[in-house]
């Protein structure tokens, strides 16, 4: 019985070899593009939200190709749960730091980072990263929890 299951598994593996190799090959490029979008939100279109969605999509692509168990091996449930709240915490934390530095909530220019110009720039940069982290990991979590496990693990 166990032997037949292993054989079945092997057969499916071979069937999906193109999908797996292509998605494995594209994953790092998509993630790099996601980081580019998050980092260049102040110069071009995009920003934390769009970059976060692209980052989440890259991991979802990996999960669709390799199955949920393989995906959870790469990104544990605990880690994604922690990252969900880390993003919001970064955002609200920067806001509170602004209050501690003597400004209003989210008044980035008051952060003690050299000039007002630099402080405001870095503050906005920080919150974009926070938005990106939360959005990416919420999308991943929604996918993991919504999709039926058996449907995606059949081929792995």
């Amino acid at each position: 019985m166990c032997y037949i299951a292993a054989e079945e598994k092997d057969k499916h593996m071979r069937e999906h070899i193109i999908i797996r190799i292509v998605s494995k090959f594209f994953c790092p490029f998509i993630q790099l593009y996601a980081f580019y979008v998050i980092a260049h939100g102040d110069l071009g279109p995009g920003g934390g939200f769009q970059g976060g969605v692209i980052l989440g999509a890259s991991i979802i692509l990996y999960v669709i190709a390799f199955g949920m168990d393989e995906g959870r091996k790469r990104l544990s449930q605990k880690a994604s749960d922690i990252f969900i709240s880390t993003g919001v915490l970064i955002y609200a934390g920067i806001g509170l730091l602004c209050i501690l530095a003597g400004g209003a909530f989210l008044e980035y220019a008051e952060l003690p980072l050299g000039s007002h110009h630099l402080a405001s720039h870095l503050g906005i940069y920080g919150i974009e990263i926070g938005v990106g982290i939360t959005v990416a990991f919420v999308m991943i979590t929604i996918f993991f929890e919504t999709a039926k496990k058996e449907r995606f693990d059949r081929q792995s």
Partner: protein
Amino acid sequence: MIDVMLLLIIVVCAIFALFMKDLLSATIILGIYSFIMATIFTRLNAVDVAFTEASVGAGITSVLMIAALSRTKRYEYHYTKLQRRKPSALFLKVISLLLVIITGAVLVYGTIDMPEFGDPEAPANKHVSPRYIAESEHETSEKNIVTAVLAGYRGYDTLGETTVIFTAGICVILLLRRRINT
């Protein structure tokens, strides 16, 4: 010309998505719909909105719908001829057609009062927009006005949006996560 073409493709996509019995195909067609919508936003010079539409509307929404489909059936329920000809079903159809026509008429009536597209004298372009265009780089030291508005002027709103997404994630975890007793 090309705008009219794109709008026509959108209408065709919407009609096809409605009549498709295979829900996976309908999801893919909705993805195409979002992608053409993103093209239209690019034509309107709203690049940030187009980017969001392409990544969220065409990308993530399709994937999440496919994930939801993996829990339900792929094909729509097929009504028999007898079920479709029942008086109650016909009545529902007439009512929904009337409702759609009335809603459409109200929306079209609402657009009559709207200012000309891109009119510089429109109230929306006279109140805060000049301030953003003139001062945003100096006030928030951001070159992209959209980012300056989202993260600078409306930073509190964006925090709220992020919290909404966070709450959505928490709710999905609370409702759907299966607990494994060890």
